């Protein structure tokens, strides 16, 4: 008898650690005491676990910022690594509260899949990586090449579109897992490895001889990557959207994790509104009024987040480019808090 009951009870015990839902995501998160964030299975610079299992990256920082905005503590996040296949179901079924997994904002995902994108935390574009000894220096010379990529990503569709538009022949070898794509490319099965440009830089670190490979100049697609939430909970969408906007506005106003406390005393009304000194913007989205200050104190402004994870001083060495503020020649532009 006990033999049969045990697996069932054990299962229930394990399973019920994720709690039973109520209507509003925020209440649920508060009750649980932590935010459940869907991230990638390991992409340096975006969401990557270290040897101790601690997560870091620009996507992870979005999760931390939101946890800080809610709880005032950025460690109250539980990360769920998701494959490309699982990610949307995980969000739809409520397994995660937030999907921050280098996911491209597209119309079909926004509409048909029941997701809402809360903004863009990294403007990316798809690029190609080749071996230097191939003697190719433009994507237009790739006719007849074999291309390694991930299945089920926008990448796979973009590459098909690109080669069709250019009327070039090609062969796609599409793997389920990013590690397998890299392994196959490294083994020489493919001439080209294609994914988001940031991903190319990240994955190049994992190759046997990173110096033997180069990223071609062409960027063939728009890949706005951002956090997504379930449809039907506007408050939760607002929280995610405005936390992200707060980080971008903070950079614009010169607020950093170091000076956030003293900036609260600044006379600038825009800063005062953002940091919750004036107005009650936090309460309007169900949080404390100093929600943004807490988020900024935890992860810094957008610039700090970028420099820490993917910027020129990291292994990835990516320039700000499109991801600079609008006034610095980029397209980062957050609506004002007022």
């Amino acid at each position, binding site marked *: 008898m*006990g033999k049969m009951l045990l697996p069932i009870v054990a299962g229930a015990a394990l399973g019920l650690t994720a709690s039973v839902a109520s209507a509003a995501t925020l209440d649920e998160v508060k009750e649980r005491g932590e935010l459940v964030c869907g991230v990638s299975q390991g992409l340096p610079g975006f969401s990557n676990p270290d040897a101790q299992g601690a997560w870091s990256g620009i996507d992870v920082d979005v999760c931390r910022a939101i946890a800080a905005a809610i709880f005032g503590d950025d460690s109250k996040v539980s990360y769920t690594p*998701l*494959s490309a296949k699982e990610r949307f179901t995980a969000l739809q079924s409520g397994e995660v509260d937030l999907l921050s997994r280098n996911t491209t904002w597209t119309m079909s995902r926004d509409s048909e899949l029941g997701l809402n994108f809360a903004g863009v935390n990294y403007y990316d574009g798809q690029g190609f990586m080749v071996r230097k000894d191939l003697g190719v220096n433009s994507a237009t010379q790739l006719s007849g090449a074999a291309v390694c990529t991930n299945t089920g990503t926008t990448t796979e569709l973009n590459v098909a579109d690109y080669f069709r538009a250019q009327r070039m022949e090609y062969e796609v070898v599409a793997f*389920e897992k990013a590690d397998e794509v890299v392994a196959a490319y490294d083994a020489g099965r493919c001439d080209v490895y294609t994914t988001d440009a940031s991903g190319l830089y990240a994955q190049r670190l994992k190759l046997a001889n990173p110096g033997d490979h180069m990223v071609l100049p062409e960027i063939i697609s728009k890949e706005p990557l951002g956090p997504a939430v379930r449809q039907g909970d506007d408050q939760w969408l607002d929280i995610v959207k405005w936390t992200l906007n707060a980080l971008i506005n903070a950079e614009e106003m010169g607020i950093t994790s170091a000076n956030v406390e003293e900036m609260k005393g600044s006379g600038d009304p825009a800063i005062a509104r953002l940091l919750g000194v004036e107005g009650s913007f936090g309460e309007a989205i169900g949080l404390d009024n100093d929600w943004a200050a807490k988020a900024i104190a935890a992860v810094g402004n957008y610039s700090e987040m970028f420099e820490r994870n993917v910027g020129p001083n990291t292994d990835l060495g990516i320039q700000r480019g499109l991801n600079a503020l609008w006034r610095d020649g980029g397209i980062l532009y957050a609506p004002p808090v007022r």
Partner: protein
Amino acid sequence: MADTSMTDLSYVRTEMVPDAPAPRRDTGFVGWLRQNLFSSWANTLLTLLGAWVIWVVVPPLIQFSLIDAVWTGENREACTTIAQGGVLPDGWFGACWPYVGDYFAQFVYGRYPFDARWRVDIVFVLFAIGLVPMLIPSAPFKRENILYMSVIFPVAALLLLTGGHFDYGPFITGQGFWIDYLILTVIVCAIVYAWGRATGTTSLGPVRVTGLSMVAIAVLLFILGIDFGLSHVETDVWGGLLVTLVIAVTGIAASLPLGILLALGRRSNMPIVRAVCVAFIEFWRGVPLITVLFMSSVMLPLFLPEGVTFDKLLRALIGVALFSAAYMAEVVRGGLQAISKGQYEGADAVGLTYWQKTRLIVLPQALTLVIPGIVNTFIGLFKDTTLVLIIGLFDFLGQMQSSFTDPTWASPVQATTAYFFAAVVYWVFCFAMSRYSIFTERRLSTGHKH
């Protein structure tokens, strides 16, 4: 025609010639060689072919794994040629064992926190303590042993591996729940008692069993909720051999009772029961495990009420258990069919009820008969656990694959070394189990002849 009798013939010997020794070429080593390898032209040709195959396969493997292998080193330099940025001569191709040594702990524990790994070790030891005597047919205390393996060990392992102190959420909180539970227990027992009265049984056995089960569940819930001061370890960081064993052992443990029920159902006289069981069994046997795992990873969350979610590992476990239950059912059915009809009829004649007959007469015999089959199912399941890496769990092989992306040891021989090592490990496990299965099979078949 001739009527001369034999005895008259003077040239016929009257005594036996002493036995001459067999020709040298038919005895000893030479004789063995002649008989087994070179008995005919065709045989000689086959021998040469066999020798050639062995020559092609074995020396390169030894060369790779032992002779040319690198045994010490700090990073990829030790295992790469000069052209690749290392220290070895060009054209070198051998195993890189320091890489395996460096990652060995990860292959066993995954990313389980360092300071909590002693808990995994204890689970391994507890498992061995229960398993070894169970595998030895002559070891005493079989009953206690089974009790240990089916009750004490799973609870202890669950507590140690996850850290216990489960938060049951709003459902089970405070005394309110326990009062409800008490009422529920009384109601369930009353129903069982009423059924007993209605069918004219005065024995309190069933009521007692039900009551004890309810108490057991309560105790279990209580124990799992206790805070033993162990840190909570999410299943996300479990990996390596730990996950392989957890999936294989849980899968087989869960599939055995389910498989028995299904097998009994398939041989039932009740047409609907039979149909349901056949449909269940044939469905799971008809689809590949990988689609089952896909289903459990992407569809199962949608099957549950909104907001209720299962752990990823648990979802895979459910899939694996249902899948192997169908195979187990067929193994058990084989055992049920192998029991002579006389046993069933005898039990009926004594007046046993269906469940008494099944529990006391049929199952003890059938399950003993199918031990080799169960072990073989377990071997299959053990090998099939590798599939979970496709849905993103890190079993032994998956952990190995994920180590390929570490630039510290990246080299052209890395994957080959890892796969070679994995193959050896899996082979040792599976081969040992298959030998055990053959051993029990022999034991059983001799037992039958007498």
